[in-house]
């Protein structure tokens, strides 16, 4: 049973999400069914509950019960539904089986954004303390890091020293150059990586090769506040990077290969004295400007590229990876004729971060992605997102796909020509 106070509090959270666009999404669906086959989860697993419009309906029924529509007809809205413990369970199932890929939105004649509607579900779950605990812990860890970074700066910088040899093995430095500059005021570009060495080493080598005036952020790019759907935490995590960029007076913030980090940074940063770029855009620029040159013989085998939903469909970085790949291989094979319709890898929305708890679902719900990759006959599956890379690697093992899952940046770093 849900008490009145809890229900009222949750309904206030619901109301806080009801902007113009959200109301439109809630009041427009005509149940035309076009989105039925659009969702990879439904296409792979075939259950009604995984149809995009069905997920949305779970939220819509609550809307019908508690909020007044603005005089429009609501052709699709089924029975109004009370906000109860059972309704929260349904919201969980709908929201945490949706990767937020927005493929359904591209198909919907009204452009209904199911991912946005799921953000209502996620916020209600946060309010009811029913969200996945690990995502909140990860978000809180990021926020804590922002508060106490001065305590850990020294050991972080020491840790980076261990990576320098590997950076230099990919690109030799000239006298006086630093392999991984940190905390450089007046640098042109702030690179925001992830915790892993694999997110720092290739990127550093490429920046050095391009003679970029760069500096590495103390913070990790990923925003777990966004995964768990908590706007306050999302903002706090984002603000750490914005403050660092302002303090160092950089002109550009470059986000590593992490889709959510890039979309959140690009869409929520607001007007700032710096621009936000994805690392893929920066790498394409270096090639275009002749600042780096690549050796195609370093890539052995046919290559296909998985567009991370948050970087391609949801943030428009589509041409750049293809431009880069033209300089890495003569045997590039598209997954689909129209990259905007690319299948999601099945790992977004926090599912990969939830680890083994979601592994079985992630494998079952992405079989269409596996078929798409296999149909190309490529032996190298490149991508530009940590989340996608982890999920595609899991799929590769599970389905014995026999491909080499590679980060685009690591392929570039391995192909750098040092003249």
């Amino acid at each position, binding site marked *: 049973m849900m008490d009145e106070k809890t229900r009222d509090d949750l309904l206030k959270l619901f109301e806080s999400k009801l902007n113009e666009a959200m109301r439109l999404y809630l009041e427009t669906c005509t149940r035309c069914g076009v989105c039925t086959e659009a969702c990879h989860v439904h296409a792979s697993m075939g259950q009604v509950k995984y149809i995009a419009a069905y997920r949305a309906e779970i939220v819509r029924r609550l809307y019908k019960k508690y909020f007044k529509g603005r005089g429009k007809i609501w052709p699709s809205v089924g029975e109004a539904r009370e906000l109860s413990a059972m309704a929260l369970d349904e919201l969980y199932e709908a929201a945490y089986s949706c990767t937020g890929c927005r493929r359904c939105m591209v198909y919907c004649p009204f452009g209904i954004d199911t991912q946005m509607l799921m953000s209502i579900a996620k916020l209600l779950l946060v309010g009811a303390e029913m969200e996945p605990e690990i995502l909140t812990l990860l978000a809180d860890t990021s926020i804590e890091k922002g508060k106490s970074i001065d305590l850990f700066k020294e050991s972080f910088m020491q840790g980076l020293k261990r990576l320098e040899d590997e950076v230099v093995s990919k690109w030799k430095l000239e006298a006086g150059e630093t392999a991984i500059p940190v905390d450089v005021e007046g640098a042109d570009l702030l690179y925001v990586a992830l915790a*892993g060495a694999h997110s720092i080493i290739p990127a550093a080598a490429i920046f050095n090769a391009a003679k970029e005036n760069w500096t590495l952020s*103390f913070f990790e790019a990923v925003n777990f506040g966004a995964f768990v759907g908590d706007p306050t935490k999302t903002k706090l995590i984002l603000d750490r990077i914005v403050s660092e960029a302002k303090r160092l007076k950089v002109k550009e913030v470059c986000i590593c290969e992490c889709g959510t980090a890039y979309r959140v940074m690009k869409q929520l940063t607001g007007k700032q004295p710096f621009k936000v770029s994805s690392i893929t855009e920066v790498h394409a620029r270096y090639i275009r400007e002749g600042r780096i040159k690549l050796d195609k013989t370093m890539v052995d085998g046919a290559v296909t590229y998985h567009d991370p939903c948050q970087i391609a469909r949801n943030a428009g970085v589509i041409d750049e990876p293809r431009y880069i790949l033209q300089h890495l291989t003569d045997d590039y094979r598209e997954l689909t004729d129209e990259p905007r319709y690319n299948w999601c890898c099945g790992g977004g929305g926090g599912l990969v971060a939830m680890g083994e708890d979601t592994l079985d679902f992630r494998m079952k719900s992405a079989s269409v992605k596996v078929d798409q990759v296999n149909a190309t006959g490529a032996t190298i599956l490149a991508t530009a997102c940590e989340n996608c890379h982890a999920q595609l690697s899991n799929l590769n093992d599970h389905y014995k796909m026999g491909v080499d899952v590679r980060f685009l940046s690591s392929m570039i770093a391995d192909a750098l020509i040092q003249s």
Partner: protein
Amino acid sequence: MSDDIKVDKVFDLKGLPCPMPVVKVSKGIKEVEIGQVIEAQSTDPGSLTDFPAWARTSGNEILKTEQDDDVIKFYIKRNA
């Protein structure tokens, strides 16, 4: 292993993708009793800021951090 600390369980987190090191330590620490110690091994420099921030958030305690050429070792006492 650190000479002066008795380790109850070791977690090899080397080379894992983000955010698996923190996820695995969070879950793994529940496999020992309160008061016992785990050793988490990482190769990621980011873990040098992630783990202390995680320990503060989760109420656990990093007793010691050691870095050598190959690996970073955290000795973490379960307090919560």
